[in-house]
């Protein structure tokens, strides 16, 4: 786990190759995170994967969290792992909500980490985050004709209409 000064070192090194790719760093509860510019997140991930001194070659998990009411609202998390040094680092790209009619977009990292295929589909399914360049961005767990993004914080629990309404009607 890189500590807070270690994170700053990484940030400095990234800055020379990809200026502006890292917007900020955070070291909280012994977990290191780089907050990335969403437009350059692929460059940053590739750099972390391919730079010999970094070697974060394994993507443990890709998930999205909704930080409502904060803005930008959606955080795409990449949990990277260096298996030689046994170190984890989190890359976090924050996406703003483009409003009612549009969906937030970010580049797909399937080309870098094939494991992200299903996880990006899951993130799309539940948050409506569009991963540009994903080979098959369809719903994965919910039905194809489902409307809405249920894991968003403004989607109410119980917002799903009850399919089997017979007993409800019979009992009132």
């Amino acid at each position, binding site marked *: 786990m890189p500590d807070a000064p270690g994170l700053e070192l990484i940030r400095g090194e990234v800055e020379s190759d990809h200026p502006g790719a890292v917007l900020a760093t955070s070291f*909280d*509860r*012994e*977990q290191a995170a780089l907050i990335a510019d969403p437009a350059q997140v692929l460059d940053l991930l590739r750099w972390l994967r391919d730079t010999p001194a970094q070697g974060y*070659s*394994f*993507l*443990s*998990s890709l*998930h999205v*969290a*909704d*930080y409502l009411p904060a803005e930008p609202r959606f955080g795409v*998390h990449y*949990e990277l792992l260096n*298996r030689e040094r*046994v170190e*984890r680092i*989190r890359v976090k790209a924050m996406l703003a909500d483009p409003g009612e009619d549009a969906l937030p977009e970010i580049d797909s990292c399937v080309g870098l*980490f*094939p*494991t*992200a*295929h*299903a*996880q990006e589909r*899951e993130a799309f399914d*539940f948050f409506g985050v569009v991963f540009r360049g994903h080979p098959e961005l369809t*719903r*994965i*767990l*919910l*039905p194809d004709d489902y409307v809405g993004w*249920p*894991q968003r*914080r403004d*989607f109410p*629990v119980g917002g*799903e209409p009850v399919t089997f309404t017979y007993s409800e009607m019979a009992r009132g």
Partner: protein
Amino acid sequence: MADLLADTPDAGLSEDRTTEVMTVNIGPHHPATHGVLRLVVDLEGEIVRECKPVIGYVHTGIEKSCEDKSYWKVIPFVERMDYVSYFFQMEAYCGAVERLIGLEIPPRAKYLRTLFLELNRIHSHLVWLGTTALDLGAISMLWYCFRERDRILDLFEMATGQRMHTRYFQVGGVIEDIPLGFEEKCRKFVEDMPVRVGQYEALLDRNEVFLQRTKGVGAVSRERLLELGVTGPLLRAAGEPWDLRKAFDYLAYPEMDFKIPVGTVGDNYDRYRVRMAEMVESTRIVGQCLEALPEGPFIAEDRKYVLPPRSELSTSMESLIHHFKLVTEGFRVEPGEVYYGIESPRGELGCFVLADGSAKPARVHFRDPSFVNLQAFRDMAVDTYVADMICSLGMLDPILGGVDR
């Protein structure tokens, strides 16, 4: 591929018979899919040319429901994701919350958790072995495996009151100490289990049908598995000694003496061998936990997060207040986020918890190993026979409750 085609009975027939591709739907309700998994398979004769798993049939929105529950009420929810390895789900979640609030758990709780996790690992592997051997025609294996599984469930029932979905782990430790007589019963199990594993191996290892069905079937290279994010016994069977229990420092694993079994070629036989060896290693860990079980409290003392003992409720006003606060509202967690990964029987089980300062988590996400591992299924199944695909699916060991959550 060409030689595989030459093996088929159709090979000598007219060309259109062998090259005709038929799309067949297997599942979602099919006993060989080990749950509610649908496979859309393109078949050329008996050979799988393309295979697409379709999931989501048991999606229940557990992650969303967790956002509506206070932290301690989430525990029984997450257990029901991967319903064969419930202790692991609890550990991933409770561990993540403990890291969020910075709560250290007492040594005895660490050992008890380790003990139950490893019992659960044996239990999970027994379910895998029984059902997969059943798929391959070894029907008696199911009964032998479930006989030992029942002894583990008896132990769970003895300590927790429940056979499955025990809700035994709490934020801060475990809910109750192990009862009198548990240790003895558990020791007996630790003595017996390696013998039983030897008996299973005697049934399967020289069984020609079993060997032919598993050896050289469904092999995927180590590099490809790593690309696909596959972890756990599948990765170790391909020769990669990667185990979070050794890599990261959590619970009592650093004090335990155990080996990581690895395979060589990563075919279905290696996957079988690795899991068999893991059962023996887990038994050793259980034995060591019993040997070295430290005395002391089994749950942290911090009254802000941990329920006071029942005896205090009638004597201490303060305890009563804490109890009331914890049961009604739950505890609040300062904003922050934590990802905590542990080694489940199927690989890396990660839990991501986002706290927003309230008494309910703002997001609970599980990186379920079955969900990620299932992506390797296409590589395992394509260009093998349908029957081998079923074998590979069994050896992949997905739990669909965990896949769909």
